[in-house]
Every structure is written in structure tokens, then in C-alpha cells.
């Protein structure tokens, strides 16, 4: 297979990628739907262009159309895609194969699903070299190991022999980057390369992409929903909404002076770019008596898999207190034990040792009916509103369920209460007979919050409750949570990996690292003056600091 275009780096002036009048549509039984309308943009050598937009904005479809990998039903209807001056828009798949990887390559979104689970890392990297005839056999394997080293994996010899499941998410993403850069392409399309990763890992991966770009002069098209990432990493920004370009230009210019309303809204909603101080709670955090601590967690320990040799300790001696009416955030990366901690606090799991007091009640002493009664006080909202709602029930059915379990209300009273709660979370009344699949992510999360609120609990445990949502929706949900706290005097236990969000919503914070409490205290204190290096690393990794906005002080200048 000969590559019709050789991946040489074009001169500064000529764009590597020049897209004009691109129209992408999806065809299904109900007809055709255009998702990308007439898009024009270009990417020059050595440049990072960020394609920013919310879900459904057409950013992924655009990226997929460029490389000819639209999902089934997707068609590139119009437009030209000039790659190094040659229009590849109408090329058949066979011909595209020749340039994929060698001239234009893709770093996919989900490192968990993009590697072949039954082949070793080394084989998979060597494969792309072999397929394009760059090297074969032992030479390809040696190059694969070099590449692994180049993308910053420790012990590349060992990694080459390992299978994808033996690597962490960040490592797998590095492997995918190694595959993407193997043939030194002129353009890398990175489709949300870090959205599945922890914030510190995210920073390392983005640093890596930056380094490689500098070294090889490769252009990068960075597809992302995170304006903070785009702000930090890109030279130029393209803002997409509903498949149309709202704005494009130099990143600094757009951030300083956004022209379109949509960009302005995105900027305002992005927590990392626009840290708003939290509105003080009804009950001041500094209020006095220790009796006012509604959640007390004391020396909590949770072991898993003990007995079968080499059990592991997910939570190790964690203690914190939460005052009534305040918001306590638990932050940490995946594997830090934050989810285990809140599962214990919300009585879904028995700790190995340690004590949890909820409003003075010791969880360990509760059994059966008493434990069930506790559910009225403390409610959990899950991360993923797609999994936490029964697909077969209507919205009314979902929200009324807790009432059926606890209160003897007539049907009319119950429905009135459900309607009132739906109204409280700002959901329109006409959705009450729909099923979850007919709602958007933000609406579903509101339903989940409504279900949690319908019993008038005192404590709401929010497990990454906004991290699966678009920034705009996320901002709305955070606003809603703030309002509800002021109205109802709720206490929140808020788990998140996103420090920008935490700073916006929480009063106090605990930082967990591999099961241990690294730091705890008031949000302002911890953020402005972190005492542990781990916390400092977490704070530094938050994207969006390159362009501190005039309206709000940046993280570093907060103290």
C-alpha cells in the first residue's frame, strides 16, 4: 500500500488541513438529519486548533468526517477536505487507509475501548509500522519500544509485553498517542483525549501532546468540551454550536473578547475559567457548637478482598466533620477512596472499622427497619443519570417511589408532592409521564435530584453529580443545588475530582489520596494555601489558568 501523500511538513504559510463547506448528515429510518452545517476552517503546521462545543454540537462528527470514520449512517454530504493541498473528501475507504496513521491520525476518546484486549501493547504499535511498510519484524518491535519510551511510559520493554488491561487509563492513552505519532503524521486529531482521565493525568497527557507537537511540528486538532483545556493548550479556537461555527480566531482574543453570545455563555459557565465564590450558606459555617455537626466520620477504614491473601485498603483512617447546612467536598483522583467513603456514609456499605454518625445516630448500630428509616435523612445522587434511573418507569413513577416507601399519602397528595418537587428542581410539568430515555442528561440529573429531595432529607450525598454533564448544564445544576441549599437548609456531601467545581460550591473540603486523608479544612484555606504537595499538584493541574479572567481572581491569586 503506497501512501499517495507523503507526510512532509508543509511550509508555514500553507495550511495542512483546509476544510471548506463541510456538511455532515446522519441518515436513519426517519430521514436525514444534518449535524454539521457548512463549516470552514484550517489548521496550519505546528498549530493547535481546539474545536470546542457541547454534546451534540457536531464536534466529534466533524473530527470523524475528516478522517473518514463517520459512524454508520453518517455521510459527508458536501465540502472539501484539503490535506496538504489534496482534496480527500470523496476518497473511498481503501484509499483513506493509506493516509490514516501516516498523514493524519486519531487519538480516540476512550482509552479503555480503543485497544485490542487480546494483543500486547508492543504488537499493536508494531502493527501500524508493519501495515504501512515502515518496518517489520524485530525492527518494528524495537521501534515500538522506542515509541513507548518517547511517550513517557516507564519500563517500555515490560509495557510492550503487557496487555491493555494491565495498564492504567493514563498509560493506555499514552499508548494510543504512541500509535498516533508512530508514522510522524502531519496532523493529529485528538478527540477528547483526556475527558476520561483524572485531572493530574490529563495534564501530563496534554503536556505530552504539546511536547510532541513542538518536536515534530505536527499540527493538532484538539476536540474538547472543556474550555479550560482549550484555553490552555490551543493557539486558535473554533466554537461550535448545533453544527455551526459560532466563532473562530486566536484563543487569547476570543477569551478576552468573545463576540458571540454562545461563547460568552460557555465562558461564564466554565468553572475552571470563571471561579465564582460560593454564596455563604444560611447557617454560617463558623457557627459554634460541635453538636451542629450533622455528619461525623471518625477513623474510617475499609478493606477489600481481605482473607484471600493481599487484600487492599480502600479507605485508610479517614475522619472529617460536616456542619449542618454546609457543603463538604471530598476530592481525589480515581482510586482515592472517595466513592467508598461516601458509600459508607450513605449506609450502602459497612466499614471495616471506624464510626459514622449521621445526625447523632451511629450507623453501625442500625439494622433493618431503623436503617431504612435513616434513608429519609440521607440521600445519594449518582454520577451517571443514565444508570441511576429505571428505564421502564415514568418520571412520576421514579420520583414518587420514595413516598410509596415511607409515607401513607393518598394518590392525590402523592402526585401533588411529586409535582411540587419536580417544580423545585425546575423541571417542566409535562415531562412527568415520559420515561428517562426521552430526557437529556441534565434533565435526568434533575429527576435524580428530585427523587432524592422528595422525602425532605437533611443530607444530600452527591457522587460526581455534575461531572457527566456539559458545562452549561453543569452550571445550571450547581446553581440549582445552591438555591436548594439556601431554601431548604440542606447539607451536601459533594464528591468530585473537579477542583474548580469544588471551589465554586463547597465550604469545607477533604482531599483524599490512595485512601488517606491528605488535607482537610475550609475551601479558601486549602486552595490558597495547600499544605501537602499532593493538594498543590491537584490544584496546579486544573486547566484554564493560562488566561485568568479579570472578573474573578485565578486560583493562584486567591490568597
Amino acid at each position, binding site marked *: 500500500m503506497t501512501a499517495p501523500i507523503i507526510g512532509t511538513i508543509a511550509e508555514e504559510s500553507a495550511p495542512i488541513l483546509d476544510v471548506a463547506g463541510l456538511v455532515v448528515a446522519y441518515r436513519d429510518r426517519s430521514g436525514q438529519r444534518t449535524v454539521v452545517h457548512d463549516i470552514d476552517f484550517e489548521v496550519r503546521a505546528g498549530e493547535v486548533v481546539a474545536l470546542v462545543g457541547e454534546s*451534540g454540537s457536531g464536534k466529534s462528527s466533524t473530527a470523524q468526517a475528516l478522517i473518514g470514520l463517520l459512524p454508520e449512517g453518517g455521510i459527508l454530504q458536501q465540502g472539501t477536505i484539503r490535506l496538504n493541498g489534496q482534496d480527500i473528501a470523496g476518497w473511498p475507504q481503501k484509499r483513506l487507509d493509506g493516509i490514516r*496513521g501516516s498523514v493524519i491520525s*486519531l487519538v*480516540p476518546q476512550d482509552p479503555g475501548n480503543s485497544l485490542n484486549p487480546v494483543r500486547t501493547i508492543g504488537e499493536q504499535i508494531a502493527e501500524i509500522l508493519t501495515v504501512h511498510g515502515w518496518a517489520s519484524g524485530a525492527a518494528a518491535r524495537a521501534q515500538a519500544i522506542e515509541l513507548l519510551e518517547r511517550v513517557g511510559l516507564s519500563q517500555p520493554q515490560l509495557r510492550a509485553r503487557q496487555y491493555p488491561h494491565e495498564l492504567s487509563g493514563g498509560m493506555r492513552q499514552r499508548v494510543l498517542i504512541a500509535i498516533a505519532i508512530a508514522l510522524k503524521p502531519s496532523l493529529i486529531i485528538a478527540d477528547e483525549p483526556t475527558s476520561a482521565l483524572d485531572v493530574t493525568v490529563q495534564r501530563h497527557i496534554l503536556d505530552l501532546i504539546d511536547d510532541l507537537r513542538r518536536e515534530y511540528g505536527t499540527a493538532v486538532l484538539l476536540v474538547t468540551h472543556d474550555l479550560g483545556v482549550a484555553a490552555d493548550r490551543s493557539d486558535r479556537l473554533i466554537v461550535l454550536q448545533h453544527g455551526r461555527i459560532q466563532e473562530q480566531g486566536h484563543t487569547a482574543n476570543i477569551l478576552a473578547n468573545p463576540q458571540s453570545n454562545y461563547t460568552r455563555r460557555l465562558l461564564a459557565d466554565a468553572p475552571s475559567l470563571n471561579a465564582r465564590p460560593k454564596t455563604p450558606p444560611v447557617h454560617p459555617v463558623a457557627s459554634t457548637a460541635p453538636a451542629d455537626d450533622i455528619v461525623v466520620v471518625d477513623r474510617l477504614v475499609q478493606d477489600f478482598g481481605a482473607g484471600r491473601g493481599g487484600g487492599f485498603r480502600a479507605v485508610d483512617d479517614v475522619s472529617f466533620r460536616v456542619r449542618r447546612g454546609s457543603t463538604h467536598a471530598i476530592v481525589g483522583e480515581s482510586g482515592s477512596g472517595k466513592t467508598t467513603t461516601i458509600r459508607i456514609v450513605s449506609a450502602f456499605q459497612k466499614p471495616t472499622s471506624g464510626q459514622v454518625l449521621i445526625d447523632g445516630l451511629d450507623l453501625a448500630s442500625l439494622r433493618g427497619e431503623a436503617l431504612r428509616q435513616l434513608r*429519609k435523612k440521607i440521600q445519594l445522587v449518582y454520577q451517571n443519570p443514565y*444508570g441511576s434511573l429505571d*428505564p421502564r418507569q415514568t418520571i412520576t413513577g421514579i420520583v414518587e417511589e*420514595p413516598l410509596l416507601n*415511607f409515607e401513607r399519602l393518598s394518590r392525590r397528595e402523592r402526585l401533588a408532592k411529586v409535582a411540587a418537587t419536580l417544580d423545585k428542581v425546575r423541571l417542566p410539568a409535562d415531562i412527568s409521564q415520559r420515561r428517562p430515555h426521552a430526557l437529556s442528561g441534565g434533565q435526568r440529573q434533575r429527576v435524580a435530584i428530585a427523587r432524592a429531595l422528595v422525602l425532605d432529607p437533611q443530607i444530600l450525598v452527591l457522587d460526581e453529580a455534575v461531572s457527566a454533564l456539559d458545562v452549561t448544564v453543569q452550571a445550571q445544576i450547581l446553581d440549582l443545588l445552591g438555591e436548594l441549599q439556601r431554601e431548604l437548609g440542606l447539607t451536601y456531601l459533594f464528591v468530585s475530582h473537579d477542583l474548580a467545581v469544588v471551589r465554586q460550591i463547597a465550604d469545607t473540603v477533604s482531599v483524599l489520596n490512595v485512601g488517606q486523608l491528605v488535607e482537610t479544612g475550609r475551601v479558601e484555606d486549602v486552595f490558597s494555601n495547600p499544605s501537602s504537595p499532593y493538594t498543590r499538584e491537584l490544584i496546579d493541574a486544573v486547566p484554564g489558568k493560562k488566561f485568568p479572567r479579570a472578573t474573578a481572581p485565578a486560583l493562584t491569586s486567591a490568597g
Partner: protein
Amino acid sequence: MATIETARPDPDLDASDRKVSVSPVTLETDAHENTGTVGRFPRIQPGLFVACLILALAILWALVPGLFTIYDPVQGLPGQHLRPPSATHLLGTDSLGRDLYARIVYGAIHSLSGALAAVGIALVAGTALGVLAGSFGGRIETVIMRLVDVMLSIPDLLLSLSIIVLLGFGTVNAAIAVGCTLIAKFARLVRSEVVTVRRSEYVEAAFGSGGTFLKVLWRHILPNSLTSVIAFAALQAGWAILQLATLGFLGYGAPPPTPEWGLLIAEGRNYIATAWWLTAAPGLVVVLVVISINRISRAIGSIGK
């Protein structure tokens, strides 16, 4: 280009596109899921259409046999034995002068109701066992599932024959025997479904909102587990017809002169050299009905996905 192929973003996994803010995009995801497979609203498929037609005819035979034939299935016509198929006797007559077509029509009720009863027994008992095992786990699960393994290890025919020997001959007992052989299969399927549903977040959320075990079972676990169980039940109905016919053929089912399909095949066997249609016709009917039911159960299964 396997490397690039693996790197291809799967639309169904495209997390950002799933977090939708407008419903049209939800439709998009559905569209991708269904492309290339049987759609949620399948176009008219000729095979399925014929299958429905055959099953509908068999059900009508069972419900109103008198509409389809003027002959009596039990009383023979004197002097008309072993006639070949003709205009008066569509499928000929047997050795006692009974119209074979009439006997097949009147036999439908025995086969279909027997299959229904067998699947009903298995569905209820198997679901109960499967739900018990799947939702309690631990020792209860181990005991139930090992019992199920034991039942699965006994050949079906041997098991049903033993049960009939215990209970005695007859249509009802044959149905019970066939039902018993199916219990283990249902229990295994239901358990796996229940275990999957039980791990889902909405079930935990239901416990979290104060649901007792039985309420959660009834509201969430059962409804979400049953789709594939229903499809399986339809599939097993076909298999039960086959089993009942087998038992009838061996003489363990309905006693003569009941026009049961398996028995018809057995009775025709003696004249296979001179009147092959006596065996072939009822055999063909059994085959067609069973295939039709299989086809329909596959359609039910794909709706559930």
C-alpha cells in the same frame, strides 16, 4: 488496518454525544444501535409474516376446529380406511377410516395447550428459583444453582419419562413432565438477568430511597429482567411441542384415540410403506409450527434489545 480500526470511535461509546441536551440526539444514538440489526419497528419480514400466519392457523385449529373440517376426528367412516389424499379427504384417511386432516386439526388443542401448560409451569417455577438465587446470593444461590446443574445434566427425555412414570400417563402429566425439564433452563436465565439488573445503580437507588427487598424486586428487578425471559419462553414453547409429540409418539402422552400429533405420527408408522402421508403430514405440521414459534421468539428477543 486493524490498528486504525480499533482506534475508531464507536458511536455508542461516544460519551460526550450521549450526554445530550436535546432529544433529537437521543434518536441519533438509537438509530446507530439499530442500523444493520432488526429495528425497533421492523419492516415487514416475509419469514416472520409466514410464521405468524402458520401459528395463527394452528391457534384457530385449537380454538374452533369445527370451522376447518366437517369430519369427526375420532369416529371413522366405514369402508373408507387408508384412502390416499383426495378432494374429499385432503390428507387421506387412516386405518380406521378417520380423516387425517380432521385429526390434525383437532389435535392442535392438545399440543398447544400442553406446550402452554409446560412453559407456564417452567416459567413460574424457574423464575421463582432464579429470582431467589439471583437476589439472595450466598448459600441459597449455591444450593439452587447446583440443583439446577444436576437437573441440566440429566437428559431431558429421560427426566420427563421418569416423571411420567411417577405421575402416570396422560396429557396433563406429559405437560407437567415437559415443564419440569424446562424449569432448570429458566432458572439459569432468570438468575443471570437478575444478577445483572441487581448490580445496576437504579436498583441501589431504590434501596436507597427506602425500598424493602420485595418492593424493589417487584418494581425494578422483575420488570427489567423479564424481556429476555419472555423471548426464551416463546422459544421453549416450540421445544415443548416437540417434546410432547415425542412423548406421544412413545406412548407416554395422551392415550388413543386422542388425535395428539405425536400419537398420529406413531399410528401412521405401521403404514409408512403404503400410506407414507399418515406419518409425513402430522410430522410436517409439527415441524412448521415449531419453526414458526422459533422465528417469532427471535423477533420478540430482538425487540427487547
